[in-house]
């Protein structure tokens, strides 16, 4: 029998340069305003990431790290607390991923947002306020500097620093083992699904 998860890559390690996005409670309406969600695919959402924070009414660029030349090749985003709060729109991590983000380091993440990131294979790892502030400052000073996010070991290495970070247990397991795409994994349990359905008093048989 074929392994249903064999095509899903392991994401135990992300390496690249950083981009700091400062502020607590950055909600999904900030990450991708709703007017850009009038689409039936996620293609092309990258250019709308943080749109209203990046552009004024005349579509002129405002100060924002996503506009800065020095961060254009960055793929590790460093954020503060409660990042991604608000709506369940997967358009938010989709936009960030399509802009080029492969991993996010932050103080804390809203739950649905972190789940959506996991479904895309984007690690969301956490550290305390001081650690994140120091890392954001270092990224500002070293926009080309290399950051290594080791999901398995729960460490982030940059410059001469190695810091401990936390990765939610199931997220770590899923990313490291390459079983973060759960469709095939769950589909394989067909019999157990049917048994559960049959045991529930409110579920009528499908036929």
């Amino acid at each position, binding site marked *: 029998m074929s392994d249903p998860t064999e095509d899903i890559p392991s994401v135990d390690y992300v390496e690249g340069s950083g981009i700091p996005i400062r502020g607590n409670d950055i909600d999904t309406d900030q990450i991708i305003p709703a007017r850009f969600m009038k689409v039936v695919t996620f293609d092309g959402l990258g250019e709308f990431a943080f749109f209203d924070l990046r552009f004024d009414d005349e579509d002129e660029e405002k100060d924002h790290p996503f506009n800065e030349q020095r961060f254009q090749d960055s793929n590790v985003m460093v954020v503060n607390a409660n990042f991604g709060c608000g709506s369940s*729109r997967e358009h938010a991590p989709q936009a960030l991923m399509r802009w080029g983000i492969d991993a996010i380091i932050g103080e804390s993440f809203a739950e649905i947002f972190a789940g959506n990131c996991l479904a*895309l294979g984007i690690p969301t790892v956490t550290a305390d306020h001081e650690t994140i502030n120091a890392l954001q400052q270092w990224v500002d000073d070293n926009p080309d500097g290399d950051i290594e996010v080791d999901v398995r070991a729960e460490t982030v290495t940059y410059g001469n620093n190695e810091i401990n970070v936390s990765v939610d247990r199931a997220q770590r397991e*899923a990313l490291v083992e390459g079983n973060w795409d759960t*469709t095939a994994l769950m*589909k394989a349990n067909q019999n157990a699904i049917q048994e559960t359905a049959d045991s529930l008093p409110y579920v009528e048989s*499908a036929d």
Partner: protein
Amino acid sequence: MSQGTLYDKVWDRHKVTTLPNGQDQLFVGLHLIHEVTSPQAFGMLQERGLEVARPDLTHATVDHIVPTANQDRPYSDDAAETMMAELEENVRDAGIQFSDPTTGDQGIVHVIGPEQGITQPGKTIVCGDSHTSTHGAFGALAFGIGTSQIRDVLATQTIAMEKQKVRKIQVDGELGEGVEAKDVVLEIIRRLGTEGGVGYVYEYAGEAIENLDMEGRMSICNMSIEGGARAGYVNPDETTYEWLEQTDYFQEHPEKFDELKPYWESIRSDADAEYDDVVHIDANELEPVVTWGTTPGQGVGIHDPIPAPEDLADDKVDTARRAQKHMRVEPGETMEGYDIDVAFLGSCTNARLPDLRRAARIVKGRQVDDDVRAMVVPGSQRVQRQAEEEGLKDVFEEAGFDWRNAGCSMCLGMNEDQLEGDEACASSSNRNFVGRQGSKDGRTVLMNPRMVAAAAITGEVSDVRDLKEVNLA
């Protein structure tokens, strides 16, 4: 870990297995879908050659992009028409029941599920919308999911989840005159913070919760996510059962009511259930709450001073400063008297019949302020019809409100209903995020529906208790 709570029991009943990554695979009793977050999931399914596993446990409606003024097809907004057409095709191909506008059953997804009786105690309910927590009012375990998870549910009727902790929020005492469910939940979020509920499911309990009608319970559960909790619920009781008995499903299948009631009773939290945390709130102390900032946690009693950012917890200072700049408010002021340009009475939080009835009693015989544009957007076509039959539409229209068709409308500004420029909006919705209502300079003040009615009349944030209520005929 919690034990013996409704959450524990419903979780255990729906658990299929534990996945290799440590998450549990849960069976989904009801999957609600709408036009914004589902098309990509159907696309993913197609790419993988998979079919919808349980169309019979899936139900669709259209709410986010649907115009509330002119609903003639094709919609004047091409993008909206495309999304609607895509949903129509997807549900037709899969054989999914669709409460579209021609059925008379269309509405905001979190309004129509309870109306039709498909929202039931002890079900697991998911939808690609964070306000799915609303359905917890019936003792369902209900939460919002992303599009990749919608794909999972469409393909398998199951979802991969980690079990959370349970926090009981005990609201004792009685709500005072003019204080509503909305005020209770705004106060909970103010106290516990917008991320206080991350990792938790909230169980709302206590005398003040038990005394609420189903609509009030829905308003509270609806905003669980604004406090960071992905799900919130109230244990089912006689109030719940009375509602259920009147719904289509149990009118058509009365035998099901007696058949299922023992299950509903069995999943209630035990008297000696163990919780991971318990929070007490005294309902007697509460006042109407309004927001002064740009997160739902930035609330304040109508007569209380707006806090100085430096008096808040360290991690809230920066957000508060930015919020006060955006809203143009100063510490020490109250929100009472804050000028408003728009009054929005709508959304999955507060656009059900009792909400409209209470607001109408404030509006009756009065006129909307000259400088305010005011609109009522009923939560569903059924709410709309009933409100029209009761004469509420006339009350609102005579006062100068615009009476619209059902949809999400100005709660999130995905259709034509949007704030313009830096307009300030008294809103019965759930989010005051910057840009949420369609203009990045727009200013949203969240409040209960009667307070929205009062603000529409006076043109400024007002204490509704200062306005005499009029009895409707």
